[in-house]
C-alpha cells in the first residue's frame, strides 16, 4: 500500500516533518527528528531507484487526477538518481549537524533551523520528483526561500547581505522561469512535461516558444550559477553556516543542472534545443569560461570556504559543458558528475566545518600544522581536493574521463585541452591547501587542538570514502548515468 505512494511520500514526509520539527522546542529533539526523517527519505529514494531500474518509468497521479489535468510525478532513471543524491547527502549531513549547528547558531533558533532545513529538503526533492512544469517552479521557490533563510542564519552580518543578494538574483531567475512556463502554457494549454514535449514538437517555429526557451534557460542558469550569473554563490557559500554550505553545495546547484536537463532534452527536445536554437554555441563557451575563471579566482583566495565556493562554480562549469555536448558520453559525464561532485564538495565543506568547530577559523593560515593535529579531517580534505583535480582512483577522474571522451568524439580538440587545463588550475589551489596543512609548522602560540568529534568526522569520511569507492567501482553510477543519458537523448529523437 505504502509502496504505491512512495513518490509522494518522498516529498510529503519532509514537508509534514518541518512544522513538527519546529514544535519540538529542544534542540537535541529537533535534531534527532530531522535525522530520522532524512534517513527515511534515503530509504525511500533507494527503493524508488530500484523500482525504476527494474520496472521502468513510474507514473504517480496526485490525488488520483489523471494528467494532463492533474499533477503527475513521473519518475525515470534520471529523477531517481537525483533524488538519491539529494537524500544521500541529507542523510549524511544531518547527523553531523548537531555539534556544528550548536557552535554556530544561537540555541533558541535550533528548532527553527531544522524546520527550515527540512523545508529546503522538501523543495529540492520536489523539483526532482515532479513531472509538472509549474510544480517545478513552486518547489524551486520553496527550496530557494528556505535557502535564503538558512544562509542568513550565518554568524557574521555578511550572511544577511549575502542572503539578500541571493534572494534578489534567485527571485529574478525563478520569475524568468515562470515567464517561460507561462509562454509555453499559452501556446500549448498544458503544464505536464511529457504532454508539453509532444505539443511543443507540433509548433516549434513560433516566437513564443523561442522566447520561452530563452527565459527558461536564463532562469535556470541563474540557479545553476554559471558565468556570468554566478555572483551570488561565493558570498552565499562563504557566509552561511558550515553545514548549510555543505548541504547547498552538494544539492542545490545539482538540482539546477537537473532542471536544465529536463527542460532542454525532455521538454524542448534535442533537435529544437541544439539545431534551431544555438544552445551549444552559447552554453559551451560559457561553461569553459566558468571552468577556467572559477578555478583561476579560487587560487587567490585565503578564506577556505570562499576558495571552495569558487571551486564549486568551476565544477558546475563541467556539468554545463557535459550538457552542451548533447552526446551520450557528454551527458553521462554530466550526470555522473552530479553524483561525484555532490560527494566530493559535500565532504570538503563538512571537513571545513570540522576545522571551524575546533579552531574557529577557516583561513588558509589557520591550516598550519593541522595535518598532525587533525589528521582525519585533513586527510579527508586532501582526498576531496584530489578528486577536484581529477586524480585517478577518485570519482572526479571518472567524470573528467567521460567529458574529455565526449570532446574528442566531437572533434573539439581545444575543448579537450581546456578541460584538462581546468584540472591543472585546480591543482594549484589544492596544492596550496596541502602545503599549508602538512608542510608548515603550527605557530608556536597556537592552543592545543584535538581532532573533531567522531560524530562530525564520520559523516565527512562517509562522503569522501564514497567518492573514492565510486571512483573505482563505477558500474553502478555509470550504469545509471548512461541509462539516463540514453533516455534523455532517446526521448528527444
Amino acid at each position, binding site marked *: 500500500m505504502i509502496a504505491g505512494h512512495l513518490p509522494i511520500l518522498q516529498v510529503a514526509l519532509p514537508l509534514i516533518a518541518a512544522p513538527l520539527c519546529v514544535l519540538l522546542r529542544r534542540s537535541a529533539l529537533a535534531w534527532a527528528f530531522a535525522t530520522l526523517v532524512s534517513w527515511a527519505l534515503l530509504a525511500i529514494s533507494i527503493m524508488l531507484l530500484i523500482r525504476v531500474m527494474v520496472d521502468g518509468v513510474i507514473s504517480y497521479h496526485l490525488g488520483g487526477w489523471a494528467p494532463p489535468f492533474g499533477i503527475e510525478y513521473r519518475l525515470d532513471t534520471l529523477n531517481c538518481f537525483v533524488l538519491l543524491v539529494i537524500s544521500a547527502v541529507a542523510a549524511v549531513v544531518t547527523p553531523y549537524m548537531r555539534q556544528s549547528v550548536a557552535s554556530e547558531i544561537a540555541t533558541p533558533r535550533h528548532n527553527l533551523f531544522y524546520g527550515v532545513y527540512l523545508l529546503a529538503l522538501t523543495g529540492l526533492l520536489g523539483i526532482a520528483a515532479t513531472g509538472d512544469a509549474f510544480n517545478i517552479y513552486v518547489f524551486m521557490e520553496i527550496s530557494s526561500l528556505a535557502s535564503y533563510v538558512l544562509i542568513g542564519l550565518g554568524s557574521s552580518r555578511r550572511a544577511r547581505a549575502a542572503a539578500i543578494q541571493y534572494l534578489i538574483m534567485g527571485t529574478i531567475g525563478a520569475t524568468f522561469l515562470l515567464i517561460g512556463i507561462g509562454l509555453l502554457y499559452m501556446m500549448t494549454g498544458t503544464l505536464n512535461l511529457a504532454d508539453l514535449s509532444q505539443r511543443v514538437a507540433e509548433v516549434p517555429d513560433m516566437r513564443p516558444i523561442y522566447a520561452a526557451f530563452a527565459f527558461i534557460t536564463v532562469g535556470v542558469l541563474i540557479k545553476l550559477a554559471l558565468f556570468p550569473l554566478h555572483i551570488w554563490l561565493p558570498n552565499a557559500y562563504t557566509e552561511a553556516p558550515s553545514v548549510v554550505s555543505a548541504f547547498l553545495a552538494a544539492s542545490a546547484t545539482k538540482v539546477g543542472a537537473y532542471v536544465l536537463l529536463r527542460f532542454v532534452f525532455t521538454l524542448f527536445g534535442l533537435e529544437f534545443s541544439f539545431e534551431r536554437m544555438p544552445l551549444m554555441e552559447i552554453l559551451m563557451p560559457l561553461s569553459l569560461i566558468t571552468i577556467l575563471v572559477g578555478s583561476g579566482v579560487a587560487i587567490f583566495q585565503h578564506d577556505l570556504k570562499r576558495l571552495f565556493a569558487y571551486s564549486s562554480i568551476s565544477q558546475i562549469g563541467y556539468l554545463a559543458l557535459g550538457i552542451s555536448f548533447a552526446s551520450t558520453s557528454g551527458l553521462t559525464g554530466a550526470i555522473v558528475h552530479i553524483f561525484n561532485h555532490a560527494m566530493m564538495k559535500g565532504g570538503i565543506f563538512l571537513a571545513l566545518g570540522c576545522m571551524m568547530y575546533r579552531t574557529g577559523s577557516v583561513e588558509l593560515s589557520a591550516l598550519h600544522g593541522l595535518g598532525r593535529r587533525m589528521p582525519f579531517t585533513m586527510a579527508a580534505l586532501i582526498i576531496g581536493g*584530489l578528486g577536484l*583535480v*581529477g*586524480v*585517478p*582512483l577518485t570519482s572526479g577522474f*571518472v567524470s573528467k*574521463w*567521460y567529458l*574529455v*571522451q565526449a570532446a*574528442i*568524439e566531437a572533434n573539439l580538440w581545444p575543448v*579537450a*585541452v581546456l578541460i*584538462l*587545463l581546468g*584540472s*591543472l588550475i585546480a*591543482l594549484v589551489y589544492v*596544492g596550496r591547501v596541502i*602545503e599549508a596543512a*602538512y*608542510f*608548515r*609548522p603550527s605557530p608556536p602560540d597556537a592552543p592545543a587542538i584535538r581532532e573533531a568529534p567522531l560524530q562530525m568526522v564520520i559523516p565527512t569520511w562517509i562522503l569522501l570514502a564514497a567518492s573514492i569507492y565510486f571512483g*573505482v*567501482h*563505477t*558500474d553502478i553510477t*555509470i550504469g545509471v548515468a*548512461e541509462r539516463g543519458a540514453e533516455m534523455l537523448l532517446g526521448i528527444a529523437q
Partner: protein
Amino acid sequence: MSGGALIVLALAIPIGGAVLLSAVGRFAHLRNEASLVTSCGLLAAVAALVPAVMAGDRPSINLFEFAPGLEFAFEVEPLGMLFALLASFLWIVTTIYSIGYLAANGEPHRTRFHICFSLALASAIGIAFAGNMLTLFFFYEALTLCTYPLVAHSGTGEARRGARRYLAILLSTSIMLLLLAILWTWVAVGTLDFRAGGILMGAVSEPVMTVLLVLYVFGVGKAALMPFHGWLPAAMVAPAPVSALLHAVAVVKAGVFTIVKIGLYIFGLDAIRDFASGEWLLYVAGATILIASLLALRQDNLKHRLAYSTVSQLSYVVLGVAMANAHAVMGASLHIAMHGFAKITLFFCAGAIYTATQKTHVSQLDGIGRRMPVTMGAFTIGAFALIGLPPFSGAWSKYYLVLGSLDDGAYAVLAVLLISSLLNALYFLPLIVRAYFPTGGQPLPAASGTTEAPTLQLIAISITALGSVALFTYPQFLFNLLRPLVGM
C-alpha cells in the same frame, strides 16, 4: 599460488606495510623492522612470479571494470618482471640505507617517510604489472602523489619550492599530454590493452600516430626528456635516500619503463620504425643526452651533477626505443637495470659523504678518498659503470645500444653514444682523481684516518656496488628474461 593471486599479493604487501607502519610508527625499532619485513616480503612475492614468466607464461588478473570495456587489468611480462625485481630488490637496500641515514642525520617525520616509501613502491609494482594503459596511468599518478611528501620532507621553504616544481611539471605533463593521448587512443582504437605488436597499427592514420607519439613521449614526464626534465634537479632538495628512490628504484625507472612499454605494446616496433616518423624522437633523445651531460659538467653541487647525469642516461633508453630494432631495445631494457644499480650507488655515496662530513659540493671533496675509502671505492665503481667500462654493468647496455645503431647504419647515433661516454668520463673522472690525489683546493685536515659513514649506509653501498659488478659478470639471467621481448 596462482599468478593472479601473486600479483595481488605483490600489490597488497607494500600497501599493507604502509598501514602497519602507520600503526606502529611511534616505536622506532618496530618501525624499522616493519619496513624491512615488508620489503623482503615484496621481493619474495615478486620473485615467485619469475619461474612462470621465464617459462613463457603471462600471469594476469583483472580486478574490476572502470568503464564498459575498460578494465583494471594486470599482466606480467618480461619487461615488467625486470622492473618489479629491480624495484623490490633495491627497496630492501634503500630501506637499510635510509634507516642508517635518518638516524645519523636526526631527520624528523620518519614514520611518514617510510609510509610514503611503501606506497611509492606499491605504485611502482602497479606500473610494472599493468596490463593496460589505464591501469598504468592510475599507478603512474599515484607514484607522483606518493613521492611528493618525500621530496618536501624537510619542510623548509626550499624543500617546499622544489616539491612544488616537482609536482607541477610531472602532473602538468601527465594530465595535459599523457591523459589526452590515452583518451584519444581509447576513442580511436576502442581498447587500451598492451598487445605484442601494438594496437595502433591499422587503426589510426600516420599523422595521427606521429602526434600520438609526441603526446605520449612528452606526457611521460618521469622520463625526463628535455624540456620537461626540470623536476629532477628540483627534487634534489630531498634527503639522499629519497633521491636514490627517485633515480634508481622507482620514479625515473617508471618513466622510461613506460616509454618502452608504450613503444613495444601500444605502437609496436614496426610502427615506430616505419610509420610514426620516430626520427624526431632520435633527435630529442640525442639532444637530451648531450645537453644534459654538458650541464652536468657545470654543476658543483654533487647531487645536481648526478641529477643531470640521470637525465642524460635516461635518454639512452628512449634512444633505444626510437631506434626500434632488436639490439637497441635489448640495450635499452638492460640499461634500466644497469643504470639503476650504478646510480643508486652514486647517490648512496653522496648521502654518506653528507652524513660523515656535511659536504655537498664537488669542490669540497678533495682528498676524501683517504678518509672514506669504502665510499669512494663504491663511487668509482658506479661512475665507471655509467661511463660504460667493463667489468662494470653499464658495459653491456652500451654494447647493445651500439650494436643497435650499427644495425641501422645510424652513425649519428653511434657518435652521440661515444661522445656522451666521453662526457661522462669528463664529469666523473676528475672528481675521482682529486678525491684520491688532492691537487689543491681545501687541504686535508690534520687528523686523518678513516671517518666513514655509519655502518648501515656502508652495507647498502657495498651491496649495490657489488651488484653492479655482478650484473656484468652474470648477465645471463637478464638476457634470458628479456629475449622473448625482442624476439631474439
